[in-house]
């Protein structure tokens, strides 16, 4: 029974695990927990984070995270492989890339000093995605790690980082680029005269809006990187190849917080379009519900009549106990908690169904009482994710049977 799209399998065999999802869902924490779990199972692992998560760094026993991989000590673990943690810094990555692509010191300086380059690589939005993917590629190449767990940059479009290499490549192959950089066959300023008329008009438009100086700067910059274009193109292609290869698995992290699954569904659709391999959905921070019946069943049971009765009972007990505490606000609080849990559970079930369609597991992670301050907290997440019966955050009666289905995705004849 082969289950190619399975987080467990990916943990054992993939080279890269990409943790993706919208902001604020705990991607960084899950990424760290996955890397730790892999290291504890004997794979040399690296977690590459984007957030300057100080408490995460502290939890890993590090002062801060930096762009140099730092070794993490795993306490009380026998047979673990080394684990490293690092934070992405897009600027040095970009500079390194330029440095790698050109041997010519002067050409290198021309690029690194060009003001457009500095803006592109540092100040303007969007470059972090490309830099992140570049970094992953470099690390895969280095062969120092068996598994690299990547925490992706926050973005409105969860998959912007996937598009980044392709965008760059498309641009380098575009007519715009070649027209601006290779006017060599022509005479005159930019050789505009012999461009096809529409292109001519377009340059005219850009010049009118952005000023002639801008086009010159642009041309200078493009000319400087033109020598690198081939290398860029190749690398962009190789980065893309890594992302869509079988050696890379994508884990979608969602927050349990009530709210629509729209962005998750959009993300899943996009993943399919990119032909990348989804290996699991993690639903993070589900609130624990320890009730003997499900939160929704409780809410259904608590109709007006039942509540009126219970309020009286509780109020009498409170008065008998000599307390001035009122029953009504306590009851409201309990019910609103049940409401939150019911909404989370509904969302979770929607994701379980969706995961089943993609033939991947949907794994809940319970909310932990505090932020994780010690590495043991991360151990716990990893253990829960991969425990035999996948400890359900809801009572056993409600979710245990479903959890088993989640761990073993429905077996279908053709998984992809």
């Amino acid at each position, binding site marked *: 029974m082969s289950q190619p799209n399975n987080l467990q399998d990916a943990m054992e065999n993939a080279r890269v695990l990409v943790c993706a999802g*919208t*902001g*604020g869902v705990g991607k960084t924490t899950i990424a760290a927990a996955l890397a730790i779990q892999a290291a504890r199972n004997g794979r040399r692992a690296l977690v590459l984070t984007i957030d300057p998560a*100080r408490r995460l760094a502290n939890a890993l026993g590090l002062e801060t995270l930096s762009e140099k991989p730092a070794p993490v000590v795993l306490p009380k673990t026998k047979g673990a492989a080394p684990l490293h943690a690092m934070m992405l810094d897009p600027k040095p990555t970009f500079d390194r890339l330029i440095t790698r692509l050109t041997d010519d010191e002067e050409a290198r300086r021309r690029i690194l000093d060009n*003001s*457009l380059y500095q*803006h592109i690589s540092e*100040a303007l*939005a*969007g470059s972090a995605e490309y830099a992140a993917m570049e970094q992953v590629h470099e690390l895969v190449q280095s062969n120092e790690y068996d598994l690299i767990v990547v925490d992706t940059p*926050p*973005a*409105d*479009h969860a998959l912007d980082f996937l598009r980044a290499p392709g965008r760059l490549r*498309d*641009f380098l192959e*575009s*007519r*715009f680029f070649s*027209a601006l950089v290779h006017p060599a066959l022509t005479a005159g300023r930019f050789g505009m005269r012999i461009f096809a008329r*529409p292109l001519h*008009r*377009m340059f005219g438009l850009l010049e*009118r*809006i*952005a*000023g*002639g*100086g*801008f086009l010159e700067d642009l041309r200078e910059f493009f000319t400087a990187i033109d020598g690198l274009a081939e290398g860029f193109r190749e690398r962009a292609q190789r980065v893309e190849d890594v992302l869509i290869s079988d050696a890379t698995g994508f884990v979608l992290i969602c*927050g349990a*917080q*009530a709210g629509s699954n*729209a*962005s998750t569904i959009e993300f899943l659709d996009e993943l399919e379009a990119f032909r990348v391999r989804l290996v699991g959905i993690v639903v993070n921070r589900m*609130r*624990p519900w*320890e009730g*003997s*019946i499900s939160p929704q069943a409780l809410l259904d*049971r*608590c109709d007006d*009549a*039942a*509540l009126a*009765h219970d309020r009286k*009972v509780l109020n009498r007990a*409170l008065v*008998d*106990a000599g*307390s001035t*505490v009122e029953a009504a606000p*306590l009851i409201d609080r*309990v019910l609103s*908690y049940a*409401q*939150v849990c019911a*909404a989370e559970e509904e969302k979770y079930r929607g994701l379980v169904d969706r995961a089943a369609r993609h033939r991947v597991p949907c794994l809940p992670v319970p909310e932990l*009482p505090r*932020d994780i301050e010690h590495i043991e907290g991360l151990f716990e997440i990893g253990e829960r994710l991969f425990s035999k019966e996948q400890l359900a955050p809801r009572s056993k009666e409600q979710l245990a049977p479903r959890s088993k289905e989640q761990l073993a995705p429905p077996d279908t004849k053709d998984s992809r």
Partner: protein
Amino acid sequence: MSAELRSLLDRRLIIISGKGGTGKTAAACSLAVAASQKGLRTLLVETAPIESVAAFFEKRPRALGYEGRELRPDLHALRIDPPSALAEYVRLQIGLGAVTDRILEMETFQQLLQAAPGWRELIILGKIWQLEQMEDKRSRPLYDLIIVDAPSTGHGLTFLDVPRVMKSAIRSGPLARHSGWVEELIHDPKRTLLLPVTLPEELPTLETQELVSRAQGDLGIPVDRIIVNRMPQAVEPEALEVLEALQTAEASSNGVEASSHGEQKLAFTGLPPLSEMRSILEQESRRAKYAQDLRAEVSARCALPVVEMPQLARGFDAESGWIDSASAILAAPIWPDGAESADPDAHS
């Protein structure tokens, strides 16, 4: 300090910023509703690639689009999508209808746009500038207050820094001049305010500190308070104590004849047993305390007072009744640690 704070409604442009998932849109919608309820002609601007504002107001949300529409009296909402804004801008600059359109549709031009960084941010801000300038027939501003739900991409402030970067990268021509106008609006403390939204959680707290220090530092964008969203209500300690006492009484009477005081299991028909209620309330109490700690931490780190938005059990969809609590966002900001923290120097 807090007494000197201007009302949020006493601005022209409020940019709501923060890490993804903190509830920027919820804060933007709340502020827009609160402002329109006070009679201000309010414009709510969406900038995300996928619209979400209408779903806060309508069960079956219809798209707002670039022109937008009235969601409530005095509350106009629209979404600025960069391609539409760019087309509008280019037409305004060049003025040639059909030819300009053809250029805009050129594959080569599209390729350039795909690869070029920054223009989306710039054109969104440019459109906001234009909306701020708009006047009605009597030459009054068309909108009293413009609220922008800023993109959450990367570090939120990159968005606001683009005009400056563009101006220095381009140097001359209309685009550089217009970038200058936009920059001026963003940095005008009379008109503009950056309103960070955060959650009582670790990473949002750190990122908010970074955002505020950058805004007040090299960017020079006014910030005067922080919205802390999804604040859980505290649980009275007395409530936990008395539940424990009741539960102990229950346990001791278990299997024993009911005492003369009639202590026995409380006969609830709907509610869960006392033990479960107690464990829920204890959890909620821990959450609330932790949230209080982080709220105090973000306030101290940023040396700014905070405004709380409550945790809503049913979230912010069209039917959850959030509009009733929308005005919470206009509440006077407070220093969570009480009076001794009111001195901003105490936090630095």
